[in-house]
């Protein structure tokens, strides 16, 4: 037996799904779209359950509704569990009236949270069940009450079968019956289709014929509404009637939510409060936890003599002389008689590569905890509510500010935070533009070039890059909005859910799932990419290991590839071919810090040398302030590190979309950097 879980957004659907399935879940995407697909098995039974996207209707206009409709038609589940939020009963029942028109049985899970008593609403469940002709179980998804009763009812099969409730006035019911009579025998879901014909639903136009067209026109004239309006109007009229009979609502006092919104959405206080909230999130995830853990984890993987923990401007140093996983494994291999390249593979390829990504894990955990808190308490919806006006103009969502702020720390969690944006186009755009914000790892590049070439004005140069990034993001937003997403209606229809105290088990589970998914990727794709870059940089084409004595870096395959791509950097470097710059940029894919360390290695400098000596080496002596700025711009906007690329892949939903995004980023970076470098080149001529 297969059940489908259907309900409005914010109806407690996810919570109910978790309560029904426990830990037996499988998460993926629906074919062809980035909407999450969750499947599971109901606890203690063999009944599988599919969580359909949160929807308000079965219209053909949004992806979520299309997915749900298609699923019901093509897979025809045995039962629909329709979760209804008792606090917005009318709107929820609107979907129910549509579900009952299909030939699938429906059981209603009436989600009565504690809010209901507060709001002074009493629902006569038995009367409601009789009038709708389907079984209703009252539950509290959050507290877990009523879940057992619901499971028992489903597994016993003793629920009321679909009676094809007649909700329309006789004249409309006659037209429906008439439509049904004209359908072919094998027409699926006849009543549903008959209503769709009246609505002029674009996917049912083929069922229109002379007969039913005339009938529908008569109805439209009589009610002075078009078919679509008429059906919606009659559904709500039926529900209104139902509500008068089955629901007793006393005058509700000003709720806590309204009181809180008076402050949190206050004209003058909203933005300052938001800034404080974001500052706390940023401080916790990037400042505090990031500063305290990045070097610590780096030490665990790569070893360190001195451990530096920082919290904003404060830094503490400890003498540790810790060997680290990589060097330790290296020494094990040496002792076992392994060759130099084997040591390097483990130490520089595998451990360093994965370590670079694992640095982010503590930040990700804290960040996801903060985001889950903001989301479950209901504050996140307020953020998009009051920032929508500004960001909407740039094709973005009010929630896009969250990834942009987090992006100054690290693009990986920033890109992941884009998943809170509902509109697919706005989400897409935010994911692609977030890596343009200069992240922590890009700072070493900026610091190196800015301090060497711009001396005392380095500060202004660094700052100008941030401004440049913001300007480009907004410009790209406007341009892409009009070019690519043109014609898509991005309409802001959303809800301000009531404020709630967060459910900690839900947050723990949410954070656990997301962190696990990230670690899994770090261990597979990112590991592979790091090893490939290591391999190309450590061997010559004739497979000789580059030991720095017989074979130097310029003999490596990576240098060869760098040579092949040197033309890319020709203009931005003011007319210089440089494989060394190309190689450094490619190394930046592993982690952006690698750009500087790669330059150090190529320049032939040891660990102790000052990094500014890089520009004294013949490899990099051609840099001018113009080409330095151009190269900084290129690194700022070009493809981010493998970690962020894999986050893009996950959030965009497909490899193809990710490739498009990366190509756009590299293309843009190249054009901007070439313009800057080109101007410098022309001036020098």
């Amino acid at each position, binding site marked *: 037996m297969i059940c489908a879980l259907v309900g409005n957004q914010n109806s407690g659907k996810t919570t109910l799904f978790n309560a029904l399935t426990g830990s037996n879940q499988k998460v993926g995407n629906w074919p062809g779209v980035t909407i999450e697909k969750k499947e599971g098995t109901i606890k203690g039974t063999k009944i599988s359950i599919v969580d359909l996207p949160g929807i*308000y*209707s079965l*219209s053909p*206009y*949004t992806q979520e509704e299309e997915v749900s409709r298609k699923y019901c038609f093509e897979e025809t589940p045995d039962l629909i569990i329709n979760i209804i939020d008792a*606090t*917005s*009963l*009318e*709107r929820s029942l*609107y979907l129910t009236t549509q579900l009952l028109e299909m030939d699938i049985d429906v059981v209603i899970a009436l989600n009565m949270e504690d809010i209901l008593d507060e709001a002074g609403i009493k629902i006569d469940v038995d009367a409601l069940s009789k009038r709708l002709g389907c079984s209703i179980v009252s539950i509290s998804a959050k507290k877990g009450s009523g879940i057992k009763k619901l499971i028992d009812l489903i597994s016993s099969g003793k629920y009321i079968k679909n009676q094809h409730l007649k909700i329309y006035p006789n004249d409309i019911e006659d037209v429906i019956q008439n439509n049904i009579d004209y359908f072919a025998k094998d027409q699926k879901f006849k009543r549903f289709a008959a209503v769709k014909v009246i609505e002029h639903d674009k996917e049912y136009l083929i069922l229109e014929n002379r007969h039913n067209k005339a009938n529908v026109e008569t109805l439209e004239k009589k009610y002075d*509404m078009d078919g*679509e*309006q008429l059906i*919606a*109007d009659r559904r*709500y009229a039926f529900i209104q009637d139902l509500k008068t009979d089955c629901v007793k*609502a006393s005058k509700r006092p000003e709720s806590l939510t*309204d009181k809180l*919104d008076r402050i949190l*959405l*206050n*004209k*003058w206080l*909203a*933005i300052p409060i938001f800034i404080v909230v974001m500052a706390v999130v940023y401080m916790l995830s990037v400042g505090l936890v990031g500063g305290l853990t990045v070097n610590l984890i780096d030490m665990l993987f790569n070893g360190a003599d001195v451990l530096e923990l920082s919290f904003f401007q404060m830094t503490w140093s400890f003498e540790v002389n810790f060997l680290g996983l990589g060097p330790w494994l290296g020494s094990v291999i040496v002792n076992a008689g392994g060759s130099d390249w084997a040591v390097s593979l483990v130490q520089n390829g595998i451990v360093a590569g994965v370590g670079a990504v694992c640095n982010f894990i503590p930040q990700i955990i804290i960040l996801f905890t903060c985001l889950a808190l903001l989301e479950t308490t209901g504050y996140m919806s307020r953020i998009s*509510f*009051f*920032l*929508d*006006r*500004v960001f*909407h103009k740039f094709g973005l969502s009010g929630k896009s500010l969250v990834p942009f702020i987090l992006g100054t720390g690290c693009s990986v969690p920033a890109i992941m935070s884009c998943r809170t944006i509902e509109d697919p186009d706005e989400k897409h755009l935010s994911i692609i533009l977030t890596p343009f914000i200069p992240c922590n790892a890009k700072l070493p590049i900026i610091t190196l070039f800015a301090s060497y070439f711009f001396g005392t004005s380095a500060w202004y140069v660094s700052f100008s890059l941030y401004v440049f990034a913001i300007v480009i993001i907004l410009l790209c937003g406007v341009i892409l909005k009009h070019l690519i997403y043109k014609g898509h*209606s991005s*309409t*802001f*229809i*959303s*809800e*301000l859910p009531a404020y709630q105290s967060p459910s900690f088990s839900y947050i723990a589970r949410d954070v656990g799932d997301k962190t696990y998914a990230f670690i899994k990727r770090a261990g597979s794709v990112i590991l592979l990419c790091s090893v490939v870059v290591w391999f190309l940089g450590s061997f010559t084409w004739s497979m000789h290991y580059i030991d720095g004595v017989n074979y130097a870096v310029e003999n490596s395959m990576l240098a060869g590839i760098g040579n092949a791509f040197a033309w890319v950097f020709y203009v931005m470097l003011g007319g210089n071919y440089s494989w060394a710059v190309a190689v450094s940029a490619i190394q930046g894919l592993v982690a952006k810090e690698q750009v500087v360390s790669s330059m150090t290695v190529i320049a032939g400098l040891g660990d102790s040398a000052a990094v500014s000596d890089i520009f004294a080496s013949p490899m990099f002596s051609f840099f001018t302030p113009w080409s330095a700025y151009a190269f900084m711009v290129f690194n700022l906007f070009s493809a981010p590190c493998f970690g962020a690329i894999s986050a893009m892949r996950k959030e965009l939903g497909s490899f193809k979309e990710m490739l498009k995004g990366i190509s756009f980023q590299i293309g843009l970076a190249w054009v901007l950097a070439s313009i800057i470098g080109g101007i410098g080149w022309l001036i020098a001529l």
Partner: protein
Amino acid sequence: MNLNNKRKKLTVGEEGHLSDLRRGQKCVVLNFHNDNAALRRRLLDMGITKGVTIEIKKIAPLGDPVDICLRGYELCLRRDDMHGIDIKVVK
């Protein structure tokens, strides 16, 4: 986007667009004029049909979007999208 300049306060009994209302005002929906089929359907689905009563509950600090109350629940809409809804003020 010069909706703001045009917005004068509507009094009880006057007709206008949903986007013209201020916080706390109540109205009845008279009609739609909207050429965006998806948006039109979406508004219908959310219960904005002829004759329904709508109250303006909250307005975002920057003036847009707007939180409205109808059929016992609340909904946020952009002013642009509210413009296509004709109303009559009742409070």
